[in-house]
């Protein structure tokens, strides 16, 4: 990947990860959301704890819901958040 991937974290995922927004340069082997999370878990802070239970992590790529096998490419905006509780 050349351009960075922009990451956003919301609600308790932000609190656990200890970061709300960051630009990252994952290795070229990272091609999907699941692989991105695998890599982020090795990047320190509270990231590993934030992603510990992936069943409760929702993911949006470029502001649309996606599943964990969705591709991630340079320049994407990837957001991680818990199940929503508005309304």
């Amino acid at each position: 990947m050349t351009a960075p991937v922009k990451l956003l974290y919301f609600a308790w995922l932000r609190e656990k990860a200890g970061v709300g927004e960051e630009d990252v340069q994952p290795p070229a082997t990272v091609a999907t959301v699941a692989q991105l999370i695998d890599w982020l878990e090795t990047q320190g802070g509270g990231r590993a704890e934030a992603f510990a239970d992936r069943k409760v992590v929702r993911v949006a790529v470029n502001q649309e819901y996606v599943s964990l096998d969705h591709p991630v490419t340079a320049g994407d905006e990837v957001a991680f958040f818990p199940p929503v509780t508005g309304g």
Partner: protein
Amino acid sequence: MIRVQTDDFDLGAELKALTAGNHAIGGLCSFVGLVRDMAGGEAIGAMTLEHYPGMTEKELERIEAEAQARWPLDATLIIHRYGRLEPGDQIVLVAAASAHREAAFEACHFLIDFLKTKAPFWKLEGTPGGGQWVDARDSDEAATRRWTQSSGKAAE
């Protein structure tokens, strides 16, 4: 029309503006969500609603477009607040207007059910023990699934 804002809204004025000038509308249905003062037996002082600026608007527009595709609607409105809210405060307004009541009722119900499980908002409740993120409810997921398993009766 969709709006995401910190300010309160005036239900009467919003509904009046929504139907103004369109006399083909015979039925207008609205739902307003309010902040409760109790959750799971615990007193709530105030809550803070966080959202995902950008995706929130897109998701609300997708939900609104889906309702308009399913029912013959003349007008729809979604207003959702964020930021600090206190018990009794209005959080959300959804409204649907149509020639007849059935489409208005069903679309209004659909809008709030979908909003609750799709729009990226999160509630942080202030309790005596500190801030607590509200857990998503299975019953909300079930309410949304109902609309995907069988299409609305008034669908065209």
